């Protein structure tokens, strides 16, 4: 179906929103909603972007359509950069690239009939022949599975699925080459989702459309996309052909996402990867690999012997110490949760053994860590904490418990042709000799 001719080419696209303060609007930080994504969409191809809410996928879509001005990077549509478009070129672009939205209830003017809504783009782009407009709209309504008579009905008379069909008709009325669909079915029932998805599939074949699909539903993406990019905190962590990506996910984040899909296979009791915590603040993303704060496969340092799960817990502990939240006050609350800190006097120091036991249960750590030296460091850190020396505790942990995932940022590189992946684990396996990664003692 695809012609191998690239219609849309996105290169290192960035969209940052400044955080300002005061009447002078001094910039105090930036939300890096999209922070360097690159991909191409071929003619007739469906490319999907998946990720959790807040990962920047919708901003990416809006920036690609130049509904937001990109901060950096380029978006080439049919070979020309859309940022350099002048007025008339932009108008043509607006004809060739269309969008459908998530919520069909709020994407129509309730006072305009279905026909008027669909015909509006035709008027905007200069079709003055009323009869001809009506004929086109009627044909299109039939094409999206409605009836020509529906042209005079109003949005409130239609069900959610029917409204989304009208949304498709409105997007297709100008005969676009690119359709950007932002969560087109997530507001719909499962059975209606299936209808809309197969309709999109049919229309794509018929009109030779390229589709950019944004969704958090991996089932939907798997159903209709040819290629998929997995986005996390404004960056792609993995890009590859759909089936390959789902059957053999390379990045730990993709693995976690795929394993979180509720499955109808009741006999499948395999251990699922569970992500803890939520997406970090995009104005202050973690150093190194942005996923390392939640990654279940984060790489342990070579000097120590760690079970993977224990290492994850140790890092969780380190992150909490780094956040400065484990003060003596908080620890005393942990020890006796029934008392509010405001109601009792907080002692200067706490019994180290008790704190250690409590923290070990809190973080699912064994009685003693497998590695004697690591255990010693942990005990030292807890001792510092219990005596109110938070900074010392952090310094000990920072110095000893390091991970390459936090130290350096993995590149998005091609492991197999057409399949890119940004993870140190993959680097390790593929082309970097193991001893090069090992830090010398």
């Amino acid at each position, binding site marked *: 179906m695809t012609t191998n001719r690239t219609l849309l080419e996105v290169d290192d696209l960035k969209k940052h929103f400044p955080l300002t303060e005061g009447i002078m609007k001094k910039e105090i930080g930036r939300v890096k909603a999209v922070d360097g994504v690159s991909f191409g969409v071929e003619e007739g191809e469906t490319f999907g972007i998946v990720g*959790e809410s807040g990962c920047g996928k919708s901003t990416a879509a809006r920036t690609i359509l130049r509904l937001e001005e990109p901060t950096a990077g380029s978006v080439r549509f049919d070979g020309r950069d859309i940022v350099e478009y002048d007025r008339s070129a932009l108008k043509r672009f607006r004809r060739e690239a269309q969008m459908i939205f998530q919520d069909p209830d709020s994407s129509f003017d309730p006072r305009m009939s279905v026909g008027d809504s669909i015909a509006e783009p035709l008027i905007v782009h200069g079709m003055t022949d009323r009869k001809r407009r009506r004929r086109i709209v009627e044909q299109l309504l039939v094409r999206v599975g409605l009836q020509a008579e529906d042209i005079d009905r109003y949005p409130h008379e239609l069900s959610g699925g029917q409204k989304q069909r009208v949304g498709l008709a409105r997007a297709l009325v100008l005969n676009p080459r690119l359709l950007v669909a932002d969560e087109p079915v997530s507001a719909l029932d499962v059975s209606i989702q299936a209808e809309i*998805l197969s309709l999109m599939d049919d229309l794509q074949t018929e009109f030779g459309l390229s589709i950019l699909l944004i969704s958090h539903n991996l*089932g939907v993406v798997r*159903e209709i996309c040819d290629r998929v990019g997995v986005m996390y905190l404004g960056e792609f962590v993995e890009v590859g052909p759909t089936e390959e990506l789902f059957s053999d996910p390379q990045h730990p984040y993709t693995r976690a996402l795929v394993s979180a899909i*509720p499955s109808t*296979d009741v006999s499948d009791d395999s251990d699922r990867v569970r992500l803890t915590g939520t997406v970090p603040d995009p104005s202050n993303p973690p150093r190194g690999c942005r996923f390392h704060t939640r990654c279940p496969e984060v790489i342990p340092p070579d000097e120590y012997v760690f079970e993977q799960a224990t290492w994850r817990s140790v890092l969780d502990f380190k992150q909490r110490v780094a956040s400065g939240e484990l003060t003596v006050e*908080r620890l005393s609350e942990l020890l006796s949760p029934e008392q*509010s800190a405001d109601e009792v006097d907080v002692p200067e120091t706490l019994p180290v053994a008790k704190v250690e036991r409590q923290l070990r249960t809190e973080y699912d750590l064994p009685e003693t860590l497998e590695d004697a030296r690591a255990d010693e460091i942990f005990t030292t850190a807890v001792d510092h904490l219990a005596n109110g020396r938070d900074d010392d505790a952090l310094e000990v942990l920072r110095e000893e418990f390091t991970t390459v995932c936090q130290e350096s940022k993995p590149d998005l590189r091609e492991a197999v042709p057409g399949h890119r992946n940004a993870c140190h684990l993959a680097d390790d396996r593929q082309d970097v000799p193991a001893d090069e990664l090992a830090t010398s003692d």
Partner: protein
Amino acid sequence: MSDDPLLSIRDLRTYFHTDDGTVKAVDGVSFDVDRGETVCIVGESGSGKSVTSESITQLIPMPPGEIAGEVIFDGTDVTTLSDDELRDLRGGRIGHVFQNPQGALNPVYTVGYQIREAIDAHQDLTKRESRQKAVSLLDSVGIPEAGNRVDDYPHEFSGGMKQRVVIAIALACEPDLLIADEPTTALDVTIEAQILDLFRDLQAAFDTSIIFITHDLGVVAEVADRVVVMYAGKVMETGTGEQIFENPAHPYTRALLECLPGQPGGLEPIPGSLPSPINPPSGCRFHPRCEYAREACRIGEQPPLYGFDGDDDDTGDSDGDGDHRVSCIHYEGEDGELPDTNEFSEIGQEPGTGLHTGGGE
């Protein structure tokens, strides 16, 4: 603890009288919920699944609503209770979790205050005790540092965390029954998985019965002990999770399973749309959209729930006690009829083969 089910719904009918006619949102629904069991009600929007759950504690506005039938909760018929007794039941022995945590929490009160509100409505505790209880509830739904978060406002929590708070409120009085109406629909898939785990853990810890309402069959497979499939106000099929997913019997259940995106075999949308709730079709309500429909399906009433024992032996407790039941005339009678359904399903797999002729004579 007795062997009687905790909740027993018999012939529940919830009608709404509107200007256009009577909407029969729930029309003769019966099912049981055992102690410590999770029952999932699945169906499309408009199938009556939410109204069913809201009828249990009579959360629907009356009038225009009207509830008939029996709702026996722990030996008492809830439909005969006075308003005061009902108020004790709601949030006391029966807790509710709603779909949108954003809308279920009041933005101007701390979450601790809102949990304590639920506790104080039903229990006589001192301020200090109820605060402790709120903290331990937040802790049990997996909110880290509960002691500090208890004084935070809803906007300081993420969506998944807010849903945990809503669950904590529902659990405040250690309910025997928890009714969760699409509790994960508004959440991301990773957060959804966390919340589903939480429900499982809480059930194991408190031995709570759960009614879980969802349109997502994937979620059903994750949590359900038993499943009730609803369509247009009627129960189409009931059975254990395994029975429903390994041997879906009703054509509607099969159709629902086939339209899940991302499954092997491709999408198979259900033709047609939901019937009008004011003037539903006669016979089986699914017949206008059913490829197995024959003349007998179009007349009379919805078929009764026939026992189905076509499950493989290894799916367990299906033999004899008839807990897999299906409202479809193709399953009428004893085992003799079963080859028929196999024949049907084989025909159904060949595209374009008209099934109306298959059973229509």
